[in-house]
């Protein structure tokens, strides 16, 4: 089958087949990453711009390595958060980059929907590297890839996502992806951070971590954003950690071979007790290296779709 999306904006608009194709392609890209000379010419002569409106060393570096392994010319454009509301508009900035020859724009933006605005108004191929509270497709794809690698499948798995679902783009993308590939998805967190309408996405809602974790094959812990504690979502980080932090005790009800994942960076002692974080660290590092392969696959498929259009 051929991939027909020139832009990769979110998992919500991809079919199960398309998601599987990205994961399969990532397998061959992973093989490239294991060679002595880790480079293929797929994007030779193509200028890719990483347009980041939020600081993100990890995601940006991962994208950059993926781009370079595909032989693209890479342009990094990092703007401060305040430039979203002041100065040049997003469209003007992006048009400038296009004028410099960028034909692929990877965008990370604090406001939901920003990549859609670019996709509508520009000719470039747009890759969403995380928009507001909306989607973070490359993170979800690498989570899916990692789960598939460890468990050998996704269909039928019980996957629990823990934490701030309301503001999490990682959660949204993962819910779409996991449900489409046939997993049973549960979301758990304080009721203030679980959107009341998430049921539509076919995820089951829990407010009690032990209950949610019963029989779980995979637990995905979301990073709690420290700034949220200033708000009125929960009383304190200490209390959050007591009810929704993952400890060995709470993990007892899960499947014996349960896999704990975290998109990083971890707040040790808050989302994860330190021992769990240590146990999980090999998976978390796997996630990081798989991230490069998955992003290479995204570029490869989007570029071929762009050429066919």
């Amino acid at each position, binding site marked *: 089958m051929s991939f027909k999306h020139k832009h990769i904006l979110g998992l919500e608009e991809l079919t199960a087949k398309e998601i599987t194709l990205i994961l399969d392609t990532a397998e061959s890209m992973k093989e490239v990453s294991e060679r002595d000379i880790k480079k293929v010419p797929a994007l030779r002569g193509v200028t890719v711009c990483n347009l980041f409106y939020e600081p993100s060393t990890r995601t940006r570096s991962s994208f950059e390595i993926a781009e370079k392994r595909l032989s693209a010319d890479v342009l990094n454009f990092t703007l401060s958060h305040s430039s979203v509301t002041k100065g040049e508009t997003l469209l003007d900035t992006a048009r400038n980059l296009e004028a410099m020859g960028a034909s692929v724009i990877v965008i990370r933006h604090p406001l939901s*929907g*920003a990549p859609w605005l670019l996709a509508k108004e520009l000719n470039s191929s747009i890759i969403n590297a995380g928009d507001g509270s909306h*989607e973070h497709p490359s993170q979800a794809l690498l989570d899916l890839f990692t789960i598939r690698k460890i468990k050998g499948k996704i269909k039928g798995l019980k996957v629990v996502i823990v934490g701030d679902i309301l503001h999490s783009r990682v959660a*949204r993308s993962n819910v779409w992806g996991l449900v489409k590939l046939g997993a049973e998805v549960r979301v758990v967190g304080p009721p203030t951070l679980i959107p009341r*309408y998430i049921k539509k996405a076919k995820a089951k809602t829990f407010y009690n971590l032990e209950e949610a974790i019963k029989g779980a094959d995979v637990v995905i812990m979301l990073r709690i954003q420290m700034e949220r504690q200033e708000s009125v979502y929960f009383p304190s980080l200490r209390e959050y950690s007591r009810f929704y932090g993952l400890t060995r005790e709470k993990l007892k009800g899960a499947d014996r071979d349960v896999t704990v994942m975290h998109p990083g960076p971890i707040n040790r002692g808050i989302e994860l007790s330190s021992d769990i974080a240590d146990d999980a660290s090999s998976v978390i590092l796997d996630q990081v290296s798989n991230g490069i392969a998955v992003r290479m696959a995204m570029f490869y498929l989007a570029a071929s779709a762009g050429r066919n259009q």
Partner: protein
Amino acid sequence: MSILIKGGRIIDPSQGIDGKGNVLIENGKIKSYPKTTKKYEGDLDVKVIDAKGKIVSPGLVDIHVHLREPGFEHKETIRTGCESAAAGGFTSIVCMPNTNPVNDNASVTEYILLKARTEGIVNVFPIGAITKGELGETLAQIGEMYEAGCVGVSDDGMPVMNSKVMRHAMEYVQAFDIPVLSHAEDKDLSGSGVMNEGEVSTQLGLTGIPCASEDVMVSRDITVAELTGSRLHICHVSTAGSVRLIRAAKKRGVKVTAEVTPHHFILTDEAVGRYDTNAKMNPPLRGKKDREAVIEGLKDGTLDAIATDHAPHSEDEKKVEFDLAPFGIVGLETALPLSLKLVEDGALTINQMISKLTNSPSDVLNLGKGTLKIGENADVVIFDPEQEITIDRESFHSKSKNSPFDGWKLKGKVNYTIVNGEIVYSG
């Protein structure tokens, strides 16, 4: 010059008229309904308009318009706003005070009315602010603005959060017998919300504005109106909860009236689609049940008027990230065909619909408009309810083009708009 409108279906809910006939306009007034027209035809001093197959009704009245002048002339001016109104069949419009400077004192009111007299082609009635600068703290110069020509007060767009200030406003306006118009919204509940809180906002990762943020304030305002005995008008009702609260209040005898916009009875939050900023307004487009409830409210009289909340914004302001785009859409040039859809769908009779756009909104603010009574100023619209049209934003007379209805195929074409006996639009 006289005008004879010949052979149309005259619908004037203010007099209970619905039938074929002729209307004669002389010296800017409705002169008579002549039985025969022969003696006028061929008279060079009489312009004859053949209205066969068309509806002749009082010119439409919109009690919720943002003309943007003074201060935001790049969005709209009094001149272009009036032209947009005329093209939509409106002969009287009521403009909100959130200009810059805010219309919170008589000198701004006088400026608006002077501009309207010299450049406006329809009747313009200003609304004054409730509080100075629409800041919700101290009362604006309500008495002086009333003397200068304001027909009501509102802090539209900026709800008065302090209940005591609202109480004093509702007491004070009774000296002038004008209503308080409420943009009912609890700002704290709305937070940084940009669209209706529901499945769509959850999917799009946009912060939601819950229906409760409107319902809570409608409830407060009704309670304060009961306390003070004031006339209260609820602007742009968007939720099933508000409709329920207003219905019950009316039953108890509270002096409350209410309006609904065409976009709230036509669209739901699904229209936001993929971050379409032309579907971003406040109150936001709601769910299916809310849409059904406001239509039911129009039907049973809970909602008195259809008003557009015409809110022009420039292309540049709307072509940004959804969160950063301003709230609001233009509405004057789409209101009539959208309202006719309610008739086509069987929700309202044509008479009810015209009433919601003429005498009924006029009564909310005691404008004395929306009628074809003999001796009154001749404000008339002639339209073809059956003619198919395609909404084309490029053809809008408004300076702004921010409409979610661009490209829609609808029925209802305005043929003539007449203000004080002058043809101000023909199409």
